């Protein structure tokens, strides 16, 4: 039986699957799902062949795009999004880390201008696994463990 069916099905919306179990609440957080009035179900520590333990989030009536998907990719690079319409999966989308990341990550360097003045952050992705982001301004590298999503 598909693990996604262990929690109740949704009619319209998105199933975010293959999240690292320990990052589940981070994903809820960065997507601002705690403010949602639509039905959300989530599970964690579910068995996964690929990840060992995985997390899953089902969000009714919501589709994600652009920056939101980039945010998911940064903390759950192996996640996929199942787009649900009328209880059917109409599209499966793998998240992908873009070549350039604008405004969604904080530079780890406290002396960077972006942490001291109102400047939109901008990073070149120099490595996707593990994630290494080079700040366009201070040129310092923010490593995967230091990634803070704003």
């Amino acid at each position, binding site marked *: 039986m598909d693990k996604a069916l262990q929690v109740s099905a949704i009619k319209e919306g998105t199933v975010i699957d293959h999240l690292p179990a320990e990052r589940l609440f981070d994903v809820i957080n960065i997507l601002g799902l705690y403010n949602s009035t639509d039905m959300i179900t989530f599970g964690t520590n579910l068995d996964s062949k690929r990840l060992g333990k995985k997390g899953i989030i089902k969000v009714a009536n919501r589709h994600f795009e652009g920056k939101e998907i980039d945010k998911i990719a940064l903390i759950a690079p192996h996640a996929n999004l199942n787009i649900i319409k009328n209880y059917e999966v109409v599209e499966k989308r793998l998240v992908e880390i873009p070549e350039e990341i604008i405004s969604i990550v904080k*530079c780890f*360097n406290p*002396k*960077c*201008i*972006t942490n*001291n*003045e*109102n*400047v939109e952050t901008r990073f070149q992705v120099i490595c996707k696994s593990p994630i290494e982001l080079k*700040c*366009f*301004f*201070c*040129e*310092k*590298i923010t490593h995967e463990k230091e990634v803070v999503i704003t």
Partner: protein
Amino acid sequence: MQKRDLISITDFSKAEYLQIMEMAKGFEKNPNQNLLKGKVVATLFFEPSTRTRLSFETAINRLGGKIIGFTDSSSSSVTKGETLHDTIRMVSNYADLIVMRHPLEGSARYASQISKVPIINAGDGANQHPTQTLLDMYSIIKTQGRLDNINIFMVGDLKYGRTVHSLLMALSVFENPIFNFIAPPELAMPDEYKRFLTSKGIRYFEHREFTGIISEADIIYMTRVQKERFTDPIEYEKVRNVYILRNKMLQQTKPTLKILHPLPRVNEINEDVDSNPKAYYFTQAENGVYTRQAIISHIMGLI
């Protein structure tokens, strides 16, 4: 014409490095040229750096330009809480070129996005100081006659020292450099730079202390080992005297060897080295004026 800035040493191509070297040579022969006549240059020093500021202001004066600016942020509207954004917006309405030094990293890149006029970065925190690198390169080409096949020893604080990082990047575009790093483990060259050299197939060697191998050096580039970089003061005490260059250590070195240092020095080059013709750090500082004249002329499209 698109505005040119000099924020990071990698903003310039190899051809431009060589062009700057050639122009600096011209300014050394004939320093007083009125290329900046009628132009206003702003020197904005948000933190004090007397040496760099005097070098730039000498270069501007020798080019016949006029200078406006401030020497530290306490004498500017920054103390009233003005943002860098607003300061740059305002000054770029007045001046034809902005030379800026700022304690925050990335500030110069940010300023270049706001400013209508070119920006030259005279140091942004621990990040970049590209005019220092170009004057280091000019000192190398002037004394060695080449920038290819240079065997350079970088000594001291290789972890935080922006000058060694930028010089490494710049020399890596030339043929067959060899890098030797002499530093305590706490201040070793960061992995990202070693990975960069490996990816380009450039040889480098790491040493804990000075050995007889300096007999192969064309250039020894000394830097300060700063006490505040160590979390454990005992560690500092252990290494503080390991990275001092003394005159007797230079006996077996090449006759063409030159010793560079971005200055100011503390004790890392013993004073008995100063009278050795291989000591080059004071001339290196003088070279800064010619190199900065060349950089300004290049950025402004004056030659």
